[in-house]
C-alpha cells in the first residue's frame, strides 16, 4: 500500500509565490524524512496532506484517501504535530490531551485513558497534572507529540519535532519518533531542515527544494554503495596507511582516522591483520555510512 502519493502537485499563493511545483512522489509506510531548507515547501505539503489547503493543481492521496475531497476521513487517521508553540499555558497536559482526544471522536473515558497512556509513552508522568505554561521546551514538544498520538492514528505528521531542543533533547525526541515508527507500528513523516538528524531514523528520505522534488528514495538505496570503514589507531597511523596501501586498499586520511572502502567482509580481516602485524594499539574500527548530505551536495549549488 502506498502511504502518501502526490501527482504533479502544485501550490501557488495568489498566483505569484510558488510553494510547490509539479511535485510527484510516492512513499511506502515507515518512517519518512521530509527534508528541505526553510521555505522549501515542507509545511505547505503537510497542510495539503491534512486537507487544510487546497492544491492549485495536481492530485494527492494519503492512506488511499483524497484529502481535498474527504478531509475529515483523512484527519481521523492522521496525527499532526505543528512546528510552532500550540499549547494553552493554563491547562494541564492531561486536560489538554484528553480534550483533544475527544475532539478526535474518542468517548470521554477512553479519551482520558488514552491521554495518560500517550503522555506516558512520550515520557511525561506526574508532570502531566501541572499547567503547561511551566513546562520546558522539551516537555512542550512531548505534549505536542502526545496530542498527535492520542487518537491512535495510522500516520503521524511531525513538523520540525526537534525545534528548539538541546542536543540531548534532540536525541531523545528522535529516539521516541523512531520507537513510534518501529514498535508502535505507526507511519511517521518527519519534517526537518536538518538532514543529518532525520537520516538517522528514517527508512525513506524525500528531499525538496524550492517546492521541487530533489530526490526520494529509501535510505538503504542511497547509502549502500558508499559504506566505508573508519580505522583509528593511537599511534603509528602512517605505518598502517603504508601497510594498507601495500595490500592494495585505497586508503584516505581523515584527520586521525583512516578511511577504507568496505568491499566485503574480507576487508575487516585485512585491516585487523595489518594492525596485529604492526602491533599497533587499535582505538576503533567501525563501519561508517556516507552521510546522505554528500549525496545532495553535488546537486545543490545550482540553486545558490
Amino acid at each position, binding site marked *: 500500500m502506498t502511504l502518501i502519493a502526490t501527482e504533479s502537485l502544485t501550490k501557488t499563493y495568489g498566483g505569484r509565490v510558488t510553494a510547490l511545483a509539479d511535485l510527484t512522489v510516492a512513499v511506502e509506510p515507515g518512517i519518512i524524512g521530509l527534508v528541505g531548507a526553510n521555505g522549501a515547501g515542507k509545511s505547505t505539503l503537510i497542510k495539503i496532506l491534512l486537507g*487544510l489547503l487546497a492544491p492549485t493543481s495536481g492530485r494527492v492521496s494519503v492512506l488511499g484517501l483524497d484529502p481535498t475531497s474527504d478531509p475529515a476521513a483523512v484527519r481521523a487517521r492522521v496525527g*499532526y504535530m505543528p512546528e510552532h*508553540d*500550540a499549547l494553552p499555558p493554563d491547562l494541564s497536559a492531561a486536560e489538554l490531551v484528553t480534550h483533544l482526544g475527544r475532539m478526535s*471522536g474518542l*468517548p470521554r473515558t477512553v479519551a482520558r485513558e488514552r491521554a495518560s497512556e500517550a503522555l506516558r509513552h512520550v515520557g511525561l508522568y506526574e508532570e502531566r497534572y501541572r499547567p503547561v505554561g511551566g513546562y520546558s521546551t522539551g516537555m512542550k514538544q512531548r505534549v505536542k507529540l502526545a496530542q498527535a498520538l492520542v*487518537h491512535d492514528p495510522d500516520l503521524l505528521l511531525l513538523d520540525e519535532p526537534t525545534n528548539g531542543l538541546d542536543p540531548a533533547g534532540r536525541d531523545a525526541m528522535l529516539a521516541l519518533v523512531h520507537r513510534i515508527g518501529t514498535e508502535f*507500528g505507526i507511519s511517521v513523516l518527519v519534517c526537518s531542515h536538518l538532514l543529518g538528524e532525520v537520516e538517522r531514523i528514517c527508512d525513506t528520505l524525500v528531499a525538496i527544494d524550492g517546492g521541487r522534488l530533489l530526490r526520494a528514495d529509501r535510505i538503504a538505496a542511497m547509502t549502500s554503495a558508499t559504506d566505508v570503514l573508519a580505522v583509528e589507531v593511537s599511534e603509528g597511523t602512517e605505518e598502517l596507511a603504508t601497510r594498507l596501501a601495500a595490500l592494495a586498499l585505497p586508503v584516505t586520511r581523515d584527520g586521525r582516522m583512516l578511511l577504507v572502502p568496505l568491499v566485503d567482509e574480507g576487508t575487516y580481516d585485512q585491516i585487523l591483520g595489518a594492525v596485529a602485524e604492526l602491533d599497533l594499539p587499535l582505538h576503533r574500527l567501525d563501519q561508517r555510512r556516507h552521510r546522505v548530505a554528500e549525496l545532495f551536495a553535488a546537486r545543490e549549488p545550482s540553486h545558490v
Partner: protein
Amino acid sequence: MSEPTGVIHDIGYQRYTGPRLGRRHVFGALYLHGLRTVFGLGRSAKAKIFPWLVVAIVTVVAAGVTAVRSQIGQVVMTYAQFADAMSWLVIFFVAVAAPELVSRDLRSGVLPLYFSRPLPRGDYAVAKLFSLMTALWLLLGAPQLVMFLGAAFTTDRGMGGVWDELLDLLPGLLYAALWAVVFASIGLLVASLTGKRAFAAGGIVAVFLMTAPVVGVLSIMPSRTVNELAFMASPSTLVGGVGNWALGDLLVPEGQGGGMPIGDFGPVYAATAVLLVATCVTLLLLRYRKVAAR
C-alpha cells in the same frame, strides 16, 4: 497500574479499536467544554471569580425583587424588564466570556490542533457561539425562574395564578434568548478578531457602549422617522425595540411609561436584529475559514 509490588510494567503501545464518535458528538463535546469555560469550570479559581460574581448579582436582584413583590403585593419588575435591567451586566459578562472562548485559542496557537482533526472549521465557531448564547440565556433566564418560583409559591389565586405567571414567564425567557443571541453573535465576532484578551474585551465594550451616544444624537434629530429608527444604532436599544414591539405591555406595563417611541417600525427592528445576527455569524464563519488555513 496499582501493582502492590510497586513494579511498573511497560505494557507497550496499545492500538485503539473501539468506537470513534461522529461529528455530532464532537460538536457536543466542544459545546459543553465551551459552556464550562464561560463559567470557569475546570479552570483556575481566578477564572471563576467574575462569572460567579455576575451570577450572584443577578440572583440576588431576582430574589430581592421577588421578596419585595411578596411583601407589598405589587409587581416591581416584569420578567422581560428584568432582562432589560440586567443588560449592562450582560455586556460586561460577554466582554469577559467571549475572549475567554476564542481569543485564548487564537493567542496560544492551539487552533491548528483543532483543525487537524475531523472537526470542520465552521463547527468550531458555531459550537463556541452556542456555548456563549446558552451561557447568556442561563444568566438571564435562571433568575427569572427564581422570580417565577417565588411568585408561584406566594400567589393567592391558586393554580390559575401560577398559570398566569407561567404565561408571563415564557415570553420573558424568549426575550432573554433574543438578548443572548444578539449579544453572543456580536461579542464572539469581535473577540475572534484578536488574540489579545484585553483588546477583545475593550472592543466588545466599545461596540456596545460607544453606540449609545449615536442613539442619543439620532433621537433628537428634527425628523420623526429618524427619531423612531434611532434605536437601531445600538445593539442594546435594538433588542429593546424588538421587545417593545413584540412583548408590548409585558415589557412596558401600562402606566409605567418609559417605552421606546419606535412608532410603527417594530417589524423593521425585528428584521434588523435578524439581519445583524446573520451578518455576525457569516463574518465569524468567514473569519475561521481564513484562520484555519494558516
